[in-house]
């Protein structure tokens, strides 16, 4: 299993597409590691600085994250930067599946919980740990810490535990 804890990068915008996560001109790379410097290079978000990615392990964002192109380079660019968890109000279908297919977490929370996270934790040094066995997100900042329940499908959890879809499919199909 991958690592599912660490510092949080808050991206306060909906509809962040995979072209913004990793621009098409870098799709000529044939290793995942080569994508590392280009994560979120074209993100259109006021106040966002590419340096903000440093030392982050979790992204918390709004609705429809990962829309557009099917490029799995988007989860890979996250992965090689040490980010294995994205928490959002919703995801585009292909991106969400790509995350789980890579053994990574794409966690959906209802809009009130997302709003709560942004209101209480954005702008602070916040860290998150995913407790996979108990379906809990443990969120911590300098002045508070709490647990938030999330729902994960059995298929999604299996892929996370197996490290992705290729291994699972090879055993079962």
């Amino acid at each position, binding site marked *: 299993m991958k690592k599912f804890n660490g510092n949080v990068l808050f991206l306060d915008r909906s*509809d962040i*597409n995979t*072209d*913004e996560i990793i*621009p*098409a*001109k870098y*799709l*000529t*790379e*044939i290793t*995942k590691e080569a994508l590392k410097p280009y994560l979120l290079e*074209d993100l*259109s978000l006021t106040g966002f600085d590419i340096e903000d990615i440093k030392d982050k392990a979790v992204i918390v964002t709004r*609705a*429809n994250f990962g*829309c*557009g*192109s*099917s*490029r*799995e380079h988007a*989860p890979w660019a996250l992965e090689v930067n040490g980010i294995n968890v994205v928490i959002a109000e*919703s*995801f*585009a*279908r*292909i*991106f969400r*599946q*790509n995350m789980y*297919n*890579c053994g990574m977490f794409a966690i959906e929370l209802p809009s009130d919980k997302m709003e709560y996270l942004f209101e209480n934790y954005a702008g602070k040094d916040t860290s998150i740990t995913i407790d996979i066995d108990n379906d809990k997100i443990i969120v911590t900042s300098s002045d508070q810490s709490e647990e938030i329940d999330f729902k994960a*499908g*059995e*298929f999604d959890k*299996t892929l996370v535990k197996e490290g*992705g*879809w*290729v291994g699972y*499919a*090879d055993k*079962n*199909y």
Partner: protein
Amino acid sequence: MGKTIAEKIFDAHRVNMPFPNTHVLKLDRVFCHEITTPIAITDLMARGMDRVFDPTKIKAVIDHVTPAKDSKTAEQGKILRDWAKRHDIKDFFDIGRNGVCHAIFPEKGFVRPGYTVIMGDSHTCTHGAFGAFAAGVGTTDLEVGILKGVCAFHFPKTIKIVLNGNLQPGAYAKDLILFIIKELTVNGATNMVIEFTGPVIDTMSMESRMTLCNMAIEAGGTCGICYPDMTTVEYLWEFIKDEFNSKEDALIEYSKWISDADASYEKVYEYDVTTLEPMVTFGYKPDQVKTVNEMSGTKIDQVYIGSCTNGRIEDLRIAASILKDKKISDDVRAIVSPATPAIFSMALKEGIIEIFQNAGFCVTNPTCGACLGMSNGVLANGEACASTTNRNFNGRMGKGGTVHLMSPATAAASAISGKITNSKVYKA
């Protein structure tokens, strides 16, 4: 309770349901291109699993960057080419015979009603125009598709869009789908199939149906679907004529793949298209749509006609009908990329290529080209492109550039005036 076409296709292809709402389907087609497939191939090799489930069901093409522009893209082509040869994948389309995947694969008759299709490309939803379930996937799903011939999906909830009335001159399938995306929003169809039905679809060509289904993903849709009918049979006839005694027999067989009248839908929308005006995008999301008249006069620097959305012969004919005996503005540069070699040849024979050239267009080989800013036709910072493609995302055609999505007719008219222009200005 009746079933939708997507449910019927799921029922006919389901291998099992290993988890609740997880349907593992048998695949009829796995399509591949040189951008998303090489990493699947190298991963399979690294795992010691360099196999394919069925070389006759896998089709591959080099289309995104062709001819190769540098060593990296040459390497991507080489990985795909060597793999196709190694596994005896006969339908591999290399340079000279290659075209945009979602144009060349239908043109070769590879998609049939009732099929399941995946590809590592989000615009795979295009192939639903044939009454198939066709979904874009990532490289891992593609890898498992190549290896095992299966893919997992959630239950296909369906949105039905009923289109009544008649499209007026100057309004095309592209205008219609831009209008629909505006109505649904960019995630209004997420995890859902979009069925396009009604009298407007009944009289629509396969090319126009592909334009509609192509952009289902821009509303978040898994697949766009049109019911198979005699137009579908006519399009496929040269490929299926040995399978059926008559076109009528083919139609009877394919009619299995039509939704039942009492099927259950997530939502049903009904529109009269008679008053639909030509549409165009603004901003950086494909649901940011206005009428061309509202955007009229917006300055552009480049015009691009092509792509899996609008690079087919019908599109080139419409554009040429507006460009005939005219010149593009001195203030714009214009590029046209016929989507396949067959389309290029037809356009050449019909005098369409000459019209484009006389107007001042650069005519490129068939390729995805400028659409995603990774090979030719890249925009400079601050430039705007009038484009028949499918995405106006920030930086899509080049860092700092803006893309206005529109029909080939509007793009042609805009090339002449140098600004966004309603094509009726140039039509008698």
